[in-house]
């Protein structure tokens, strides 16, 4: 095979064109936009180049709120969903009866429309003039007063958002972890049993190291996914997220572009670039930590 056959470029052309126009060019353009000050959407002109967009975004209370929300979401849901998924997968791989059924049940959220799920969550938690909502009813049995989860205190809204996110992302993690657990050679467990290893130690010293690459993968993709959260919040709290105080960074970017307060591609770009750096840093930290352990 010749290495620099011009024909090969011909074969690559469709993909290069497509990716170039729709992926690479916009990516570069976002960086460019984020430095153009006073950009006018109508006349497509700008007044100068500098860091003003960044300083605006970083001082915008809506962005700071979105930043806080996103970070809370990430810190709470990623460990929680991964941990729960691990527990459930361990359970799934140790039960024999009804395993298929359980697997299907746990996988259902994955194939369900997120907006539909959001609606269901909203109905479960919503407090209206006529009813306190299903969850509040249950809380009432334990003597806990009704809380307005959808339109009430910040922590209540955050709780619903986190619960919803965990619920949505778990099926995929369970799926991946069950297959990782199943791929651990049974002979290791046999060897450990003959040597009298306690099940806790088997888990800590054999199972966990064996599936750790999968866990690292899940945590990293989980972080990235949670940083990109937007549709979850929309599904629960509607499109006016700033008013609800539940906006996320991606939501903020969207609002700056197309929302009611929209029309500011420069601010949106600056926010998007900030998100990019955050995700990059966190992912690098993740890889560093997991790399050190191995």
């Amino acid at each position, binding site marked *: 095979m010749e290495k620099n056959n011009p024909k090969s470029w011909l074969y690559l052309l469709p993909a290069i064109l497509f990716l170039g126009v729709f992926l690479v060019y916009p990516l570069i353009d976002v960086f460019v936009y984020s430095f153009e000050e006073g950009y006018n959407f109508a006349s497509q002109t700008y007044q100068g180049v500098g860091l003003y967009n960044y300083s605006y975004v970083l001082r915008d209370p809506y962005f700071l709120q979105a930043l806080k929300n996103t970070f809370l979401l990430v810190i709470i849901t990623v460990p929680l969903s991964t941990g729960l998924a691990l527990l459930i997968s361990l359970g799934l791989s140790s039960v024999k009866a009804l395993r298929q059924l359980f697997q299907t049940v746990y996988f259902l959220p994955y194939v369900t429309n997120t907006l539909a799920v959001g609606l269901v969550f909203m109905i479960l938690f919503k407090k209206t003039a006529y009813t306190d909502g299903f969850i509040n009813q249950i809380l009432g049995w334990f003597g806990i007063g009704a809380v307005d989860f959808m339109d009430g205190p910040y922590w209540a809204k955050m709780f619903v958002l986190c619960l919803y996110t965990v619920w949505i992302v778990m099926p995929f993690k369970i799926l991946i972890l069950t297959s990782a657990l199943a791929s651990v*050679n049974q*002979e*290791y467990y*046999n*060897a*450990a*049993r*003959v*040597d*009298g*290893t*306690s099940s806790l*130690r088997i888990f800590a*010293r*054999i199972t966990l*190291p*064996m599936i750790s690459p999968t866990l690292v993968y899940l945590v990293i993709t989980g972080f990235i996914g949670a940083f990109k959260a937007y549709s979850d919040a929309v599904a629960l709290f509607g499109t006016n997220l700033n008013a609800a105080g539940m906006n996320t960074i991606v939501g903020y970017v969207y609002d700056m572009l197309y929302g009611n307060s929209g029309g500011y591609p420069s601010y949106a770009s600056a926010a998007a670039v900030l998100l990019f750096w955050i995700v990059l840093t966190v992912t690098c930290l993740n890889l560093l930590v997991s790399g050190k352990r*191995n």
Partner: protein
Amino acid sequence: MLQELTKIFPARNKKSGGEVTAAKNLNFEIPDGELVSLLGPSGCGKSTTLNLLCGLLKPTGGRIFFGEEDVTDLPAEKRGVGMVFQNYALYPHLTVRQNILFPLQNLKGAERPSKAEMLRKAEEAADLVQIGELMDRRPGELSGGQQQRVAIARALVKMPRILLMDEPLSNLDARLRLQTREEIRRIQRETGLTTVFVTHDQEEAMSISDRIIVMKEGAVQQMGRPQEVYDEPASLFVAKFLGTPPINVLRGTVKGERLYIGEEAVREAPGVPEGEVLAGIRPEGFTLCQGGAFTCALKAVEVMGRDISVVCTHPALEGETLRAIISAENLAQIGGEKVRFDLKPGKTFLFRPDDGERIL
């Protein structure tokens, strides 16, 4: 030390229904400090037997004794067995040292040695199998033979009452297999551990063991010292299973206490009732003889240096060809279309054709 009574083991229900009896009514006693091979073809229940011994499987019936102690209901970890698995089952994320330490770190309470003690024991075990310089490597960086040694060291480190080995040599290449075989023998002699060794390779079993137990379809066919089992096989199956090249089997009849193969009376058969028999003749059981009683059609002669292998055909033969191994000094005498042999007395066995039981 290891006395074993009946073990019935059916009811491993496959989904298709019908149970598999992997081991039926096994009865054998393994003398203390000996190396015993469980020998048989694939699926004969030898690995199942080993798993029953180490406690990974529960028997359906029968008892297992280690010495005087009934261990049938003891879980694997309380039996004090060391096991070497076919694929070694070394933990890939741990170093050799950590692998060897692993069983010791499982011990609890008074049994648990101090850290220094553990390290010393691990060193000892590693020295015994001569892998002292590999302690800080990971299993993935070792050759098959070295991994094998680590697996043995791991099984030995807690001083088990019995060492169990499940086809430990099957993943090694031919040369290494030979070398490791001797190594296992040496380690077993040095430690004096009662060892049960599972293999389907008869040569391996013959060369390494104090005793071999030949199994077929979950039942013991014969137990004895390797040479005994070879010289006095209890059944056609055992006779066929041991020895390379394999034993020659011919259809024959007994008339008037004489064995006839075809028309020729080839040997005496004292005390054998008249009727059809199967005659098993070891390849080395032939002597070339001008006026020999047994005539075959010559097909080929294979020269092997010290010996020659005479390949013949005979109408009464079960299987394709008959092989006779004779001394190379006789090479000059072979020629023409026919060869005539006399049969050595101790190398010919008679079996019942229906169930393969030994008659003579």
